[in-house]
């Protein structure tokens, strides 16, 4: 116990000394540092914080030091995380490599793959993106049709991936591809690491109803990928993807909402309620209160999950509600504000609207994305009904 307390003290001291005060506030929109070969910083503190954490190996605190990690054990890692949270330190960078494919490579990758890819991730020097979803497959991930045909020492990849965040700024992609069209739906899938600089790769940003987005569609036209870039064995892609998605949920919960700064719900609601027409004010206030109570309840549920989980209770049923509740509550909150704001909520850009209200309109439209992306609300309800409530799976 003493050892861990010493560790905690040293972490706290280091963070106090090394995390610049300006990095202890939630980042404004678009101020996250994306890992990658073309790093950009909007201010010196950001770079300082990035480099200091990188040099500690704390981008990947629990990875072995040989791969550029921090070499911490699980307990030490938790201490570091809670100290970072306590000081409200910003995430020094965003990196799909470390959180997603990194752990999978650590567990399932070849020695060669580990040596080649992990250090770059751990130093934030390589930007990774995820190639899972496909146009036409939707929630049915395993229905993918992007083909990878064995040809000599290479696979030749043809097809398309969609909803790939920051594909246009990524160096590498981990992708699910169909290596055996004759095998079963799941059995024919493999996982490949694809260099985005390869000939035949092209990307196109997707415009959302809320405007420009970081989502892209990626096209593969006879892209040659060395067989050495196959993770695991042929046909193991689905198993690897499931292992990887378990990390996704952890990564999401670790970072919460920090990277989606919206409007301040209550602040804006108070201001708009005060301006509302007297006939509608009480009804709109009731809606605002319902949103606020739902959000309050959700926060209490997070706390309860944490506490009950810590006490050894099974909290998997609670965790299974998070994605659904979070995205649906978010949408309802923005719908409520939008109704409340009347014609002031109708601005797209330019003069005549204040900035907060322009942000509101975009965030309202953006909220529609979250009840679809990362497993639609319908999929979440299926999971709750079948896995949590134990109702029979009728395939519907």
């Amino acid at each position, binding site marked *: 116990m003493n050892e861990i307390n010493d560790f905690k003290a040293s972490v706290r001291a280091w963070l106090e000394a090394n995390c610049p005060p300006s990095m202890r506030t939630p980042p404004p929109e678009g101020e996250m540092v994306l890992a990658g070969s073309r790093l950009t910083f909007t201010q010196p503190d950001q770079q300082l914080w990035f480099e200091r954490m990188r040099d500690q190996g704390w981008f990947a605190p629990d990875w072995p030091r040989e791969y550029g990690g921090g070499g911490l054990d699980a307990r030490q890692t938790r201490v570091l995380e809670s100290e970072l949270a306590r000081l409200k330190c910003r995430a020094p960078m965003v990196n799909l490599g470390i959180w997603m494919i990194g752990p999978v490579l650590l567990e399932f990758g070849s020695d060669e793959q580990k040596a080649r890819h992990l250090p770059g991730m751990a130093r934030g020097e390589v930007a990774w993106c995820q190639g899972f979803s496909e146009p036409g497959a939707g929630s049915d991930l395993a229905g993918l049709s992007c083909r990878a045909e064995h040809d000599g020492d290479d696979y030749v990849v043809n097809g398309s991936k969609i909803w790939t965040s920051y594909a246009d700024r990524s160096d590498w992609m981990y992708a699910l591809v169909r290596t055996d069209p004759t095998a079963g739906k799941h059995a024919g899938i493999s996982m490949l690491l694809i260099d985005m600089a390869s000939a035949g790769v092209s990307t196109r940003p997707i415009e959302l*109803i809320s405007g420009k987005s970081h989502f892209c569609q990626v096209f593969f036209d006879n892209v040659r990928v060395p067989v050495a870039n196959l993770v695991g064995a042929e046909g193991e892609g689905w198993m690897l993807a499931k292992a990887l998605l378990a990390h996704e949920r952890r990564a999401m919960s670790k970072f919460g909402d920090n990277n989606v700064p919206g409007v301040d719900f209550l602040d804006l609601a108070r201001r708009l309620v005060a301006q509302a027409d007297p006939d509608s004010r009480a009804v709109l206030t009731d809606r605002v209160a319902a949103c606020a109570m739902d959000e309050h309840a959700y926060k209490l549920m997070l706390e309860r999950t944490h506490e009950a989980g810590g006490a050894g209770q099974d909290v998997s049923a609670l965790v299974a509600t998070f994605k659904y509740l979070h995205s649906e509550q978010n949408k309802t909150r923005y*719908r409520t504000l939008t109704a409340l704001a009347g*014609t002031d909520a109708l601005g797209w850009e330019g003069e005549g609207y204040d900035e907060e209200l322009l942000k509101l309109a975009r965030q309202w439209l953006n909220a529609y994305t979250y009840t679809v992306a990362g497993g639609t609300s319908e999929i979440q309800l299926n999971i709750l009904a079948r896995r949590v409530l134990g109702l029979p799976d009728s395939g519907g």
Partner: protein
Amino acid sequence: MRFVLNEDQNMLRESAADFFAGRLPLAHQRKLKAQGLTHDADAWREMAELGWNAIALPEAVGGVPFDRSGVALVLAEAARTLAATPLFASNLLAAGLIEAAGSDAQKRDWLPALAAGDKLGALALDERARHDPTRIATRATREADGWRINGAKCAVVDGEFADLLLVVARDADTQDTLLFVLDAHTAGVSCQPLSQIDAQPMARVRLDGVKADEAALLARGAAADAALNTVLERARIALAAQLQAISRVLFDTTLAYLKQREQYGRKIGAFQALQHRMARLFTRIELAESCVQAAVAALDTDADLALPAALAKGMAGETALAVADEAVQLHGGIGVTDELDVGLFLKRVQVLEALLGDSVYQRARYARLIGVVA
């Protein structure tokens, strides 16, 4: 017959449908938007040539003897391709107010140009983000030779293209409602066009010491209130008809998608949870449709429009919001992309809902009209 269109109405509806499908299809609206335009000025000219700007105006001032419901029918068809038209602001609101409240001389002065579409009108009424015709801070002060008007107006549909501005103000002395008709180019009138989520024309208007002579005063006091109320009810019914038209388009589009799209080896329309959601929406749409049809029919009668208008706008607005939400969600990933038209309809629904009182406002009005509250 309130619920079956007559032959004239059917012909108008069909010719409007043809016009918008052929001349202003949704793809055309996308092109306009890409060019930074909110409407197609040539098409507006063509609509005027079809006589639409003249519907229900007196023949003596260039009107065509078509029932007022005609404007709602044309606007509903326009909504199906998200086409902007001058009819709402110029015919229903501006010309409607002049016709309802103006003197014979004023009608002769202003209506022929509006009926012919040579000039366009707009109504500068609301001053707050949530519709409230009772809270007017714009003041008109009497001067030796007329009036001096000061105020700021928001949500002026077509404001930047209007030649004529109908302005609602209060008499600085008596607090009476005053209705003015002003040349939009009068000194002191300034107009700020807005870039709105639906890419259709909307403006803020400022009136800084605007000078108006007596001939510009359409009506005052009770007469002004009555004319304004009547015209606003008509406009709410027209908004309801547009909302309802969009509900239908979105519902049909979504239904077709559910029948075609496959997931997990079956049509997603086979999933019972989605079926029930669609079935429930269907019942809401048919309820709203019944209200909208009754309200549109009431446009052509002498009936008090307050109750049918509150009912139609409230029901159609709430329904359209729900349908648009579901349309986006049930289209899944592509539903949230700009590539699909669904998002464009969602944005337009939000605009139509906010104009002249949203569902919450209409329900409060309805409650008062049926005496639930005093």
